[in-house]
Structure formats: structure tokens, C-alpha cells
């Protein structure tokens, strides 16, 4: 493998690692908090919201938005680190 390929595969590995972490959070807030553990979380009430219900109809969506912007930041940094930014 030459230098160029090595750089590309190192970049790809870091990229995939970010994806696993971010999609882990994506899964946790929607399928976890909003569906699988909804019943348990509903016993906690914040204001008028039962927590599981809130995650299903509000919280998960806020987290999704944040996740994409975090991803944009992480990838811009990564691009710079490997000289792929333009």
C-alpha cells in the first residue's frame, strides 16, 4: 500500500468510528428512550411531560438535529487533518 492509500484508509477508519458512535446515540434516543424503555421512563415526569413520551414526540427529534451538526463539525475537522478539505 502506498502513502496515499494508507492515508485514505486511515481517514475511512476514523470516519466509520464516528458513524458508529453517532448512530449509537441515534438509536438510543429513539428506539431506546422513545420505544423500548418508554414505559420505564414514563414514571419520571418533567413539567407536564412523561419522559418516555417526551422522547418519542420531542426529545429524539432535537437530538437528531444536534447529531447532524456534530457530524458536520467532526467531519470538517477530519477533512482538515487529512488535507481533504477544499
Amino acid at each position, binding site marked *: 500500500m502506498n502513502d496515499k492509500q494508507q492515508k485514505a484508509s486511515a481517514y475511512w477508519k476514523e470516519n466509520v468510528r464516528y458513524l458508529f458512535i453517532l448512530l449509537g446515540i441515534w438509536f438510543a434516543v429513539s428506539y431506546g428512550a422513545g*420505544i423500548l424503555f418508554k414505559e420505564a421512563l414514563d414514571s419520571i415526569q418533567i*413539567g407536564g*411531560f412523561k419522559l418516555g413520551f417526551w422522547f418519542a414526540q420531542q426529545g429524539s427529534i432535537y437530538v437528531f*438535529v444536534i447529531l447532524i451538526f456534530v457530524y458536520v463539525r467532526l467531519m470538517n475537522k477530519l477533512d482538515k487533518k487529512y488535507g481533504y478539505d477544499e
Partner: protein
Amino acid sequence: MSVQTWTYILVGITFALYIGIAIWSRAGSTKEFYVAGGGVSPLANGMATAADWMSAASFISMAGIIAFAGYDGSVYLMGWTGGYVLLALLLAPYLRKFGKFTVPDFIGDRYYSNTARIVAVICALLVSFTYVAGQMRGVGLVFSRFLEVDINTGVIIGMIIVLFYAVLGGMKGITYTQVAQYCVLIFAFMVPAIFISIQMTGNPIPQLGMGSTLNDGSGTFLLDKLDGLSTELGFNEYTDGSKSMTDIFAITLALMVGTAGLPHVIVRFFTVKRVKDARKSAGWALLLIAILYTTAPAVAVFARTNMINTVSDQPYADMPEWFSTWEKTELIKFDDKNGDGKIQYVADVKLNELTVDRDIMVLANPEIANLPAWVIALVAAGSLAAALSTAAGLLLVISSSISHDLIKKVLKPEISEKGELWAARGAATVAVVIAGYFGIDPPGFVAAVVALAFGLAAASFFPAIVLGIFYKKMNKEGAIAGMVVGILLMLFYMLKFKFGIFDGGKAAVAGLKESWWFGISPEGFGTVAMLVNFAVSIVVMQFTPPPPQNVQDIVEDIRIPSGAGAATGH
């Protein structure tokens, strides 16, 4: 001024605006027609994507569905937003780097096969046509209710407007009209929501109002009140669903993956300049969509509470004016079964006297809450913006599938640039006419199929694209087998359990619920079909030759963001 005058004024102004934009942004080349020239800014593309995505279903139907389904309605909220995370992380940047015009372009080139391309074209047409018919119907509905024209005339007016800017401007015209349409629709959705939130809870932010206490001095939380009212009338608790957890899980996943696989959404990311712009514009798109999607559940709670308070156990003779206007459209029906002159609205079908079509919750909401006439008219203009913007995006996918993927890439590669542009315009015209026909005379299956378009997209495109990017060794045999098996399985399940085709028709559908596979409804089956697609692709791949080196090099290349250049068709 009356509601109708206001509606004529607002709809007139917005339509004039769309036509003005269309004339200003005519397309001169196929590149402008397919990808708006490839230089759209991330924010503008985010707005256009949001308008493209939010259809008549999001604007008109969703809050209403949630109002009646309560917690079960969460599948739409999470499903139709969470898909953007998948789109941003797994698809958009790489497809932008690949830099072609359409989704079948990617499938055809990545899997070095015109068979794969044609399978992708068929999937794209199947998904887009079912979807666009629903939009045209929405346009007709709004026209007939607010401008009191015949529903068919409404559809035809909508057809002419879309035809005008889609055929003239292609993606370029569509992009800039969608930016304007986003502004119109979000304003139209938020204004009544804020008004009602203040009215009911004193909190001007609907997302917070939903979790606040009522304004009536009782100190009760709105959601607790609604839970109480629901159980009193025999319904499920609002914050608790009636669907099984497995089904909720499957539907949410099918909608998410389907969203990420919808061709009219994916192509929007071909219109930006660089890979980093594609990532960023996915972020903008979801942020702008989230404004509506986090407000919708609040609107649902307000509307449902308001409705129960207004009608439950009240004398029919005392009903406000909106009640009878909507009765005329047959979207509200009252049947005084026990003859006491009062409205009994309860869960038990034998005793229930009131049927309310869920589609009218958003449209009637401002009237139920007694808001001024201009707000009601605004909702009409907003619904039209939502329906027209989505219809235009879908028509572009249909026309480019035919002119670019079929004519240019398969049937007649020697066609000139100019010839291809005319073919694209011709295909768009034919598509509008067919869509309009479905809008005027909807075959019974359209409404049901729209919801299942997501299942079809999940079962076909999503696995093929993800494997194409993340699995270098995936070959054409695997991908084609996966797509074909995935979409056929989805179609089979749909025909069997949604239409009862193999068991004696529609009437049998309810009885088949017991035999759903793994307890998963047809709406959620896209999840299973997607998993089967992945599995079939990977198994078939083991026994067939690997992709040629140049294709593996393409995969290496799309993983690196720099040097994207402009999208090209050649």
C-alpha cells in the same frame, strides 16, 4: 373581510410569486434541469429539501393522525426525522462525491450493469408515482374547501402551476420555488399553533405549551387533562399507545430507512457544490423540518382537547359554524343514534355518534379555536405550498428517470443535449397529466399505497446504496438479487395483508391481522424486507465474481470528500 376573500388574496399572491420565480430561473441545460447547475448554497438547499420533503401529508394529515393516535403517532415523528440522520451520515456525502444526476445513475454505474439501472428506474417510478397522486389530491381538497371550486377544477389549477415551473425551470426552477414555499408553509403552520398555544396554556412556544398547565386556573397539566378525557370516553390514554412495541419499532425503522431511500430527497443533495455542503445542507434540512415536526404533536394535543371540549355531550343545535361547513364536505359526520339531540363522542363504535376525518384537524383547527379569518386563509396557502413543492420534486424524479436514465443511458445514448432536455420536459408534462388524473379520479388504492411507498424505498434503494458505499466487494449479482427480492417481498406482503388479494379482497384484511408475520403490520414490513434485501445481497455475493477493479476504485474514490467537482451526466 371573509375567509374566502382572504384565501383568494393569499393564494393569489403566493401563486404569482411561484410563477415569477419560475420565469426568472429557467433552465438552459440538462445540468440546470437535473441538478440546478450544481451551485445551490447549503441553506437554500436545506430549505428546498425541507419543502420538498414536507408534503400534504406532513402539513395537513400528520397532526390529525397524531391527535387520534396519541403515542402511536410517534412513529411518524421519529420515522420521518430520524431518516435524515441516516441520510446525512450514510448517503448524502458519498452520493454527492459520486456526482451524477440521479439515483439510478449511481446504482447503474456502481453495479456496472444496465439491468441494475433499469431495476432502479422501475423502483423510482413506482415510489414516485404513488406519492405524487396523493399530493394532487391534497391540492384538490384545499381548493374545494377554501375556494369552493369543484375538486377537479382545483386539481387542474394545481397541475397548471406545477407544470409551469417544473417544465420550464426543471430542478433550478423547483429549487427556488421550494425555498419560497418553505417560508410560506412554515409561517402558515406556526402562526395558528402559536395563537392556540397562548390561548390554551399562556405559553407562546407550542413545544413548551404542550407540557404546560392549562390556562383555566385549574393548575392541571394539559397532557394529564387529555389523558383523563380520553380514558373517560373509553379511548386509550393519549400518552400511551395501543400498538405492540414490535410493531412501533418496525414502523419507525421502515419510515426512517424509507425516508433515506426516497429518490426525490436524495437528488436534492446533488445540487450543492462540495461534499461538505451536502453534509451541512442535510443539517439545515432537518433543523427546518424539525420546526414543523416538533410543533405538530403540540397542535395534535391542542386540537384533540379543543375538539372533545367543544363537541362531547353538547347539543347538536349549539354547534358553531365550522361544524356545519365541514359537515357539508362530509369530513365530519353526526348520526344521532339515541335521538337525544346531543353528540356522544366515545370509543365504543356502537354508541359513538361522531366521525371526524383526521385530515381536517389542521385545516379546521384555526376555526375551532376562533382565530381571525386571515389565519384560516394562511393555512390554505400553506397546505398548497406543501403539496405543490413535493409534487414538483417528485415530477422531476419521474422525468429524469425517463429522459436521463432510460433514454440517454439505455435506449438512445447518442441523443443530443438539447434533445435530452426536450425529452425531460416532455416526460415531466406526461407525468403531470397522469398525476392529475390520479388526483381527480383516485383509484381506491392510492391513499393506502402512499404510506407504503416508504416500505418500497426501504426494501429496494437503501440497502443497495449503503452496500455500494460501505462494502467494496458488493457486486452486481448481489445488489440486483437483493433489490428484486426485497421489493417483491414487500409487494407480496402489501397485497396480502393490506389489500387481501389472496384471501378474497378488502373485506378479509381485518381478519388477517392475526397472521401478520412476527406481529408486524404492512406499514412496518419495510424493515423486514430491507433486512432480507441485505441478507440476499450478501449471500449471493459469496457465490458470484467480485466487481471489476475500476469499480472498486470508484468506491475508494467516493469515500474521500475532496475533488468532488460539479455533478455531471457523462
